[in-house]
């Protein structure tokens, strides 16, 4: 789960990580007062959306004086940013973070994350931070990494190593050590999987200030992080994905026109792959759950897929193990019965009671196209989608 910048910075302050002075604004008429409370005549206006690339689509603006400030506010607040996230409509900007500028000498890239291969928390820094820096440059700019010890965490020699790589002054070294300790404490306390500060400003006085803040919380840990769960901004997520989430389904919206419903994440990806192999384009990834689910879950999932206007055909791929295919078939008939089949639905079933399931679907006369074979199912779905487009 992602946090907004303003939420992340509140946590930073709680954990002793310096941030610029800032005020959160949720209405245009509060903008001027906020600016005055910050002082000065120059401010940064930052749209609070989850996408990392907001600055590339005008989500971060500098304003000199009140006129520019008002214009920046009007251009952002209540508008939608097309960041590539949040579905075709983009992400609506409900809040602005207004900040005072920080005089800086260098922009550092700083990230703490879980390295699954090393099985350690790692900290990576680069001298080249900011939006043109390490993050976007791929492998070209040198990023230095240290790994937290499994027992002892990050240690002074880690701080020293990174300070040397960043060529920091004595004062800044102390600040980096504090930052790493505080960030690691936050990382562990709040079950983060990623904590990114880019840029981390190094000021002339040797202070380090987090100009941006991106935190991702472990979804599996939200039960024990109720305070963080409460920070979830569902508005940032695509509407269908949000509905799926509420039903406990893993759904990812894609660009194609063939809806997919599969049990098991691996098989769901494999089904998408197979569609591609046959020249089709999946409209979504959807795992109804590998193991424990009932007909209702299936019915909900199918309705969800059909609710996407882009979908021209549906491919259902079920490997019956614990749950019997005939029960799954029932759920699908229910879902279809309610509103009829808007588009062709190809169903492949295998495993427990697959024959009974397919037979029930065929007998339902609702137009399900049935098969035992994965290969055939993919081909039929692609053909159905093409026919649909043609029609």
């Amino acid at each position, binding site marked *: 789960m992602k946090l907004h910048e303003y939420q992340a910075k509140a946590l930073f302050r709680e954990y002793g990580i310096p941030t610029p002075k800032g005020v959160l604004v949720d209405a245009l008429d509060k903008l001027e007062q906020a600016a005055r409370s910050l002082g000065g005549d120059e401010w940064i206006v930052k749209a609070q959306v989850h996408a990392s690339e907001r600055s590339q689509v005008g989500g971060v603006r500098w304003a000199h004086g009140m006129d520019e400030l008002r214009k920046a506010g009007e251009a952002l607040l209540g508008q939608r940013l097309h960041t590539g996230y949040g579905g075709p409509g983009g992400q609506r900007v409900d809040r602005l973070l207004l900040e005072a500028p920080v005089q800086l000498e260098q922009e550092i890239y700083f990230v703490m994350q*879980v390295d*699954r*291969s090393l*099985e*350690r*928390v790692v900290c990576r820094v680069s001298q080249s931070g900011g939006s043109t820096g390490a993050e976007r440059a*791929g*492998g070209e700019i040198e990023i230095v990494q240290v790994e937290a010890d*499994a*027992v002892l965490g990050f240690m002074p020699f880690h701080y020293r190593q990174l300070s040397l790589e960043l060529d920091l002054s004595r004062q800044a070294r102390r600040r980096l050590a504090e930052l790493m300790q505080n960030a690691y404490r936050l990382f*562990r306390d709040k*079950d983060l*999987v990623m904590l990114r500060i880019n840029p981390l400003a190094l000021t002339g006085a040797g202070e380090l200030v987090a100009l941006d803040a991106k935190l991702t919380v*472990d*979804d*599996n*840990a939200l*039960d*024990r992080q109720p305070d963080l769960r409460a920070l979830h901004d569902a508005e940032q997520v695509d509407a269908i994905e949000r509905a799926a989430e509420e039903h406990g389904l*893993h759904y*990812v919206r*894609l660009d194609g026109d063939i809806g997919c419903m*599969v*049990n*098991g*994440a*691996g*098989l*769901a*990806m*494999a*089904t*998408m*792959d*197979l*569609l*591609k*192999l046959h020249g089709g384009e*999946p409209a979504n*990834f959807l*795992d109804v759950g*590998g*193991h*424990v689910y009932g007909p209702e879950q299936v019915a909900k999932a199918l309705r969800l897929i059909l609710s996407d206007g882009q979908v021209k055909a549906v491919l259902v791929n079920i*490997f*019956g*193990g*614990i749950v019997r295919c005939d029960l799954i078939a029932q759920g699908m008939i229910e879902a279809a019965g309610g509103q009829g089949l808007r588009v062709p639905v190809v169903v492949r079933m*295998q*495993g*427990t009671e697959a024959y009974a399931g397919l037979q029930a679907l065929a007998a339902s006369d609702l137009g399900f196209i049935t098969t035992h*074979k*994965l*290969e055939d199912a993919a081909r039929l779905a692609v053909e159905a989608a093409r026919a649909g487009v043609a029609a």
Partner: protein
Amino acid sequence: MSILVGRKTRVICQGLTGRQGRYHAERMLRYGTQLVAGVTPGKGGSEVLGLPIYDLVQDAVDETDADASIIFVPPASAVDAIMEAAKAGIGLVVCITEGIPVQDMLRLKAALSFYNTRLIGPNSPGIITPGECKMGIMPGQIHQPGIIGIVSRSGTLTYEAVQQTSKVGLGQSTVVGIGGDPVHGLGFIDCLEMFEADRKTKGIILVGEIGGSEEEEAAAYIQRHVRKPVVAYVAGISAPRNRRMGHAGAIVSRAQGSARSKYAALEEAGVMVVFNPALMGAKMLEYFRG
């Protein structure tokens, strides 16, 4: 026995008295698994499915000489359950539980390194040596005793591989689902090493997916150490970047984890890769037919 589990494996079930535990325990018993006891704190002294229930794993081990444990407990209790098994000397732990926070897994893995306990999972469908021992939630009936070792990060996709190898008559020596979480117990390399050493196993199917670099590391290992034929399929060549595909571990991030990179590494290592998930069994059969 081919690898890890067989006829002689004596299994306890932690969380046997729960709904899921009981359901699968019954099926494991029916399959012929030597399930000898259950462990549920506070329920010691009772009996479920004719099996004695103990409060502590140590008690169960003392009384039944169990050497393996399958765990069905909620994610908040799973690390404790695994460590209790390790401390009691259990040599193989299969953790079915899904949803363990990744930092818990980091700490667990570090803690486990002080014990001689092998962990499969979490978020794993389990392990099966067909006809001998099923420790997991897979549908037993699709398996056939045979010569192919299967190791996979995915559940239902493993069943595809199983069914395909059963259908073409090769069967399986042992099938291991290592689980879809980013940090887990036994990995591809551990299983490849055991399959390579196992006399019953004649060929290996590796089922990978996007995310992480375990397939790349497995490829490097295969190149150096594996002489048996390996067929590999990697799910997610059609997956977009930066989106999690169901499994907590299935995500292509900036620089790492794409199916393309994994396929390239595997091909480079001489693995017979298939891009079509329906052809894993056929490809393996093709090899054996020469």
